């Protein structure tokens, strides 16, 4: 029982990362109806932004790891990623906007491979795993022994942090999307981009904004994972990006709460498979879930079915 609860905690904290990245996939799909496969690489760039900003932020605080330093690193990585996301959209996707969706999709795969391989050059990041600086003392939180058997559970600072930050960013995101003028414009573009531009919405601006917002979430995910697993390399975003994509589809692509639900589910499923079935089948089962969802509920758990108008 304790082991199961512990696996659940592990799964949720892993799933929170998937959720953050899945949000980016889902938002871009919402406005542009295509999958930005370079999103996992933006996440990787976020982690490397933290690698460079981390020591500098620590120096500001006398070399002591702490929450303010971590917050600075987090904000820096989110800004860098937002910029990278906007630039990618501007250079690679905007010129193709009127072309068939397939062209943009293939371009996205190209952009992803480009980033991965350029970053492996030893003048950029280099191919080897690098140690991420300790910006937060990641320790286990003592559970009082009065809790009986629950005292055997371990929750670490970083696990709590991941869940808190993810929940906070999700709240902020829903506020932006549902209660601001920008958010309303985003929803309008998503609903019907031709009509929205007729109504005076600057579609280009809104799409850039969406890319920036989604990419900044990926940047946050990059920092949060690196705090937990302080070894980063240029290919870290490939598998994670794919799984986050599965999470977005599972929850219903284009649907924000769906992305979070999908992320958490994938995290928990993955952890349980490793803990109780076999680690070898971990990825097979995750992608098996994708196939099942596409067969039985193509619009995802929270997605609304869309009928093609003839």
């Amino acid at each position, binding site marked *: 029982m304790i082991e199961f609860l512990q*696996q659940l905690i*592990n799964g949720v904290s892993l799933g929170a990362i998937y959720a953050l990245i899945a949000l980016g996939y889902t938002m871009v799909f919402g406005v542009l109806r295509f999958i930005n496969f370079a999103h996992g690489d933006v996440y990787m760039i976020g982690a490397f932004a933290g690698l460079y900003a981390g020591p500098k932020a620590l120096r500001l605080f006398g070399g002591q790891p702490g929450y303010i330093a971590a917050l600075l690193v987090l904000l820096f990585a989110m800004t860098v990623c937002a910029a990278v996301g906007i630039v990618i959209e501007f250079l690679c996707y905007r010129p193709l906007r009127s072309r068939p969706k397939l062209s943009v999709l293939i371009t996205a795969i190209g952009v992803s491979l480009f980033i991965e391989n350029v970053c492996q050059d030893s003048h950029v990041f280099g191919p080897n*795993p690098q140690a991420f600086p300790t910006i937060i003392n990641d320790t286990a939180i003592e559970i009082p022994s009065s809790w009986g058997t629950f005292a055997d559970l*371990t929750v*670490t600072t970083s696990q709590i942090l991941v869940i808190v930050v993810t929940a906070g960013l999700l709240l902020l995101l829903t506020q932006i999307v549902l209660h601001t003028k920008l958010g309303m414009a985003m929803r309008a573009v998503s609903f019907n981009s031709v009509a929205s531009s007729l109504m005076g919405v600057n579609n280009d601006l809104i799409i850039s904004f969406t890319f920036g917002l989604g990419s900044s979430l990926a940047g946050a995910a990059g920092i949060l994972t690196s705090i937990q*697993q302080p070894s980063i390399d240029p290919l870290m975003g490939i598998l994670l990006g794919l799984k986050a994509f599965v999470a977005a589809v599972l929850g219903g692509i284009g649907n924000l709460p769906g992305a979070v639900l999908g992320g958490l589910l994938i995290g928990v499923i993955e952890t349980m498979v490793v803990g109780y079935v076999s*680690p070898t089948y971990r990825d097979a089962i995750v992608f098996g879930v994708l196939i099942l969802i596409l067969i039985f509920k193509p619009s995802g758990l929270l997605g609304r079915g869309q009928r093609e108008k003839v």
Partner: protein
Amino acid sequence: MFNSHIFRLALFLAAGCCAALGEEDIRVGEFASLTGGSASFGQSSHKGTALAIDEINGAGGVLGRKLKLIFEDDQSLPGQPATIVRKLISQDKVAAVLGEVASSKSLEAAPICQENHIPMISPASTNPKVTEVGDYVFRICFIDPFQGTVMAKFALSKGWKKIAVLTDVKQDYSMGLADAFVKGFTANGGQVVKEQKYSTGDKDFKAQLTSLKASKPEAIFVPGYYAEVALIARQARQLGIKVALLGGDGWVGDSLLEVGGKALDGCFYSCHFSAEDKAPAVQNFVARYKAKYGSEPDDMAALGYDSAGILAEAIKRAGATDGPKLRDAIAATKGYAGVTGTISLDAHRNAEKSAVIETITNGAMHFVETVTP
């Protein structure tokens, strides 16, 4: 007129060749990577080999003749070892070949030595396939599974009876060590309480570690490579697993301590050689190596040193340098006192020797003991 010129030239060349091939020196070929990806291994092993040859010559050589080391850099490139070894055998007429550290390179050179009946001694290729090429191919390091046996014996000597195993399913190296460990440990009264797996490149091990923790092991055997082991150690400590982690020489890598940090304190792993070993032979070697190169010898340097030593001793016993006789003499090596332990070669031309156990305290690696299987 013209013909006589050519004739003279030919005579001159022939004379030159004969002088170079005179009975003075015994030629020994060596190939290693001084440049390229695995240069750090190759440089060490070459320094060790060269030191041994110098010392043997300083003490009068073997069979009243000096040893002459003919060295070629294979630049860490595939394809190079084959070219180099062909050249060493056909042009330089070496009596034996020493090399390489990387198993893949030794595997390229081994068939050529085998064909030409020239003995080859690899200082550090641990892949079992290397010596399976043929009866002219030897190695003086232990093979992968052996470290599992050593760690099983070490764990039992520590009084640990219940151990969990965490294996990297993508690495033959890891699987081999784990198999040998489980066999050796259970045969001698130990109990493997749980086995879990991961794959190279994984970053999150909390699920595996949680399941291992529930089995309440007294230590965990993690025979993987340093990149994953460092993360495993950190996450184990975060989950409140306080027992020691055990592993093999795959742990030795730059980023192990950088990433793992304090989480690795009190863990143990096996390797070939420790410069901290207090045995007089080792300390003498360390002092001479430092005097010549100004740095401390590592595993590869010590293995390179022993490979040349074993060859010289075999030439002495053979009393000759022709292939078959020398091969038999190398194969008969028993109880050679090297700096990496007492080495005997078994029927499969692999070394039977002791391994060194090291521990990590306060972010540094220290010698613990030597274990003989």
